[in-house]
């Protein structure tokens, strides 16, 4: 557990145990939110069920506020938190593939795992597809290397690009999230599909 273990020295087994407990918590909350159901997940695309955006936006904002406050109180060293490296082209192409796959398959990697754990067969097939995709990527890497590594921007953060403080960025993101919540509510009324939503 990177940033916290820099404050207190923890033995490795404790690190891994904490990771395990966090994983259990994650799977548990996905399942109780109903994300094992592919009909609930694609409801985000068709508009009749916007739970996904509410849950994920809430989760990221709580994490953002929490980490900023912990960093302010000196309990978390944000420089030790991993930031994804940004490859522009790869992100766009990968995002399109992932989005198409999500709608078609009805799962994304995390929710696919939680559906798999309750025994859904379509999740198992989805997973085989995912592993195949990863395998294909590795095998064809020399051909797509240029695309995968193009437009490298490094591990940058949005607030760095905009030149604003992390706190201000958090506030703006919260405003965007609140607007999204309201739009989501409106969409659910507009695109309601009671025949589906009553079953899931």
């Amino acid at each position, binding site marked *: 557990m990177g940033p916290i273990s*820099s404050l207190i020295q923890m033995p490795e087994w404790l690190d891994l145990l904490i990771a395990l407990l966090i994983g259990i918590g994650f799977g548990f909350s996905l399942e109780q939110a109903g994300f094992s159901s592919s009909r609930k997940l694609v409801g985000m695309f068709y508009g009749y069920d916007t739970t996904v955006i509410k849950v994920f936006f809430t989760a990221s904002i709580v994490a953002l*506020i929490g980490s*900023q406050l912990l960093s302010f109180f000196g309990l978390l060293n944000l420089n030790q938190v991993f930031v994804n490296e940004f490859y522009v082209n790869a992100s766009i192409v990968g995002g399109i593939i992932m989005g198409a796959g999500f709608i078609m398959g009805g799962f994304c990697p995390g929710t696919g795992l939680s559906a798999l754990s309750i025994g859904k067969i379509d999740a198992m097939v989805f997973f085989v597809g995912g592993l195949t995709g990863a395998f294909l990527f590795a095998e064809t890497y020399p051909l797509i290397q240029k695309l995968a590594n193009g437009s490298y921007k490094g591990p940058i953060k949005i607030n760095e690009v905009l030149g604003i403080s992390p706190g*201000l960025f*958090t*506030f703006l993101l919260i405003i965007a999230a609140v607007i999204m*919540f309201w739009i989501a509510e409106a969409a659910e009324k507009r695109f309601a599909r009671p025949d589906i939503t009553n079953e899931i």
Partner: protein
Amino acid sequence: MNTRGKFSAGLLCLGFILALLPLSANWSFTIKPQKLLPKVLDDKTYFTVDQVARFVVSEDTTVQIIDLRSPKEFRAVNIPGSINVPYDKLLNNALGSILSNGNIKNIFYSNSDFDSNYALVIAGGLNYKNIYVMKGGLNEWFNTVMNSSFSGERISARENALFETRTRARKMFTELNSLPDSLKLKFIETKHIASKKLDGGCE
């Protein structure tokens, strides 16, 4: 107000507080001042130039000597076996890659006693252990190791040991720093440590 409204209001309040805070993305000290002060005033954090000379002469691998001066000054003259981390680069968060090995004694030095001691406080503030300063810096090294001599007819055993170490250190220092720039650069390159990148992430 329904749940959604209350929840959003709460989030907006917290976000507003955060927006007003002087949050910075830059690194800062992680331990408390009361904890840092005794470490900073500990006499054991100093090595004398003679002690460093002994490390240099015995090519002690449990020791890493770090030169905080500019690259130009480092190329002109430096202590054999030392690596160059300019002080201003150190402030740009370069410490992680150099001080990563917890078993090695890291000894900072500069020309005098300013930069090396600033660096020690900074490393201590980031909770690194095993950090030391060569007291007096390179000026003291020249004064004691390079230029000193023993006078009088008799010298004690201890003085003799000092004399031997100083002579050998003097020789090594002169040999390394007398190399023409190209050879010296190659010799120093072999001691260069590449910086580590944070690796990880998955989805």
